[in-house]
């Protein structure tokens, strides 16, 4: 029936609008729900979310060892030439030659934080860090070497 549908329409519309108003009214009277971060003031207590992509880092363990084999998968995956892997050959005591990294050069000013290098890495040697304060006065400081000096590859990673 037409009239019944009409009234149902009106009631439906009004009740759904009231539902929305209840939600926003709840937010209005509950200031603790506010999610604004007052950034420079709360720098000490700022919590970044885990998956925030700020820069590429290479985690090192206590023995100053990393997991990078120097396979250059990240370099190949990078769409804009941000990563350059410089490899060298290490000679083991048995006289066997082994490929290793000399330097993993990361140019932050070219990076778009696309995460493709992290996905490409077969040994999970690199990851994204949540640090976002990258401003420097000299752009050469943005070119970083990710492996720490004197570090070597962890045992058992091929």
């Amino acid at each position, binding site marked *: 029936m037409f009239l019944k549908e009409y009234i149902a329409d009106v009631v439906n519309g009004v009740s759904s*609008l009231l539902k*929305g*108003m209840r*939600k*926003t009214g709840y937010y209005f009277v509950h200031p603790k729900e*506010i999610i604004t971060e007052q950034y420079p003031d709360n720098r000490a207590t700022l919590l970044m979310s885990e998956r925030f992509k700020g820069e590429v880092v290479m985690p090192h363990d206590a023995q100053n060892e990393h997991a990078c084999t120097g396979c250059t998968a990240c370099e190949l995956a990078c769409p804009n030439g941000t990563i350059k892997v410089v490899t060298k050959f290490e000679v083991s005591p048995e006289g066997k030659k082994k490929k290793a990294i000399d330097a993993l050069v990361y140019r932050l000013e070219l990076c778009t934080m696309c995460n493709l290098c992290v996905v490409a890495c077969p040994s999970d040697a690199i990851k994204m860090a949540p640090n976002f304060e990258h401003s420097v006065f000299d752009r050469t400081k943005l070119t970083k070497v990710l492996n720490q000096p004197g570090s070597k590859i962890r045992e058992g990673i091929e």
Partner: protein
Amino acid sequence: MFSLEGITTSVQDWLFMKFNPTMALAMECVIVILLAISLFAILGLVLVLMERKVAAHIQIRLGPNRVGPGGMFQTVADTLKLIMKEGLVPDMADKFLFNLAPFVVMMVGMLLLAPIAFAKNFQIWDINIGVLYISSVSSLSVIGILMAGWASNNKYSLLGAMRSGAQIVSYELSAGFAVLTIVVLTGSLQISEIVKAQENGWWIFKGHIPAIIAFVLYIIAVTAETNRAPFDLAEAESELTAGFHTEYSGMRFALFFLAEYINIFIVCAIGATLFFGGWMPLHIGNWAAFNHIMDYIPSSVWFMGKTFFLIFLIMWFRWTFPRLRVDQLLNLEWKYLLPISLFNLLLVAIIAILGWHF
């Protein structure tokens, strides 16, 4: 007890004592003009800040919080910025109409102040056709908006102005019917009479469900008439950049911006007068003690409190509801609001004739 009535009578007595009647009347006019302009300036600052704060809290944000304590001087800073900006007039625009339009829109707001009762016996002009005057003058604002859209020489402006015309003309009907329900209940068009009729209870309580329906219809219709979201099709940031005031900048833009908030204040003041008893304190039946305590709150505080409550309600709508399309807008008016308000008016007429209201 503080009352504005005493101040106005003493000022008038003093003026008529010192000067001849013509001179005294002229000076009273100047005082009223100064008061109206200062009220507009203060309202502009307060309401813009209120809107931004309300919007922020509804959207779980903080809002302006840097300029002054809690961001209190944000709007003052914004106004200073707007004053110092260059007011551009686009090439090939109709310069006369372009410059005139913001003032027409403001003038409508100023004219509407005349019959509003701000406190007990504190009214610029207690005209005996007050409600009729309000509904006829408020429809003039469409001229200012059409003028702005036409004179800008910009297709966005023209489209926005045309939409605004369609919108204001159609929603005026249901706003008028909502106002009429109260006129039917009161039996008078005079604002002071309408307020006086609510001495023993506001119409929203005394008028049963039809009064509540009329109030809802009134709020919806005036939100559309003031071109605010969810009915902001005249501005329509997403499709018409800024609608009729796309080409306006600097102080002329500020006048349009101010006029929007002044119009909100005025429609809310009228809504408060019609449905919530204007400056009349909250009286409940025979609770003599309660009524006596309520009388101690000054009438101006009652009026402003009710008005700002309604303003908050309209802001709450704006930041909650999704926008309408043009066809949905006109559907809502012609297929829903108008039939409902006609039926509602009939119901109220029956109630008024049979004396079912309290």
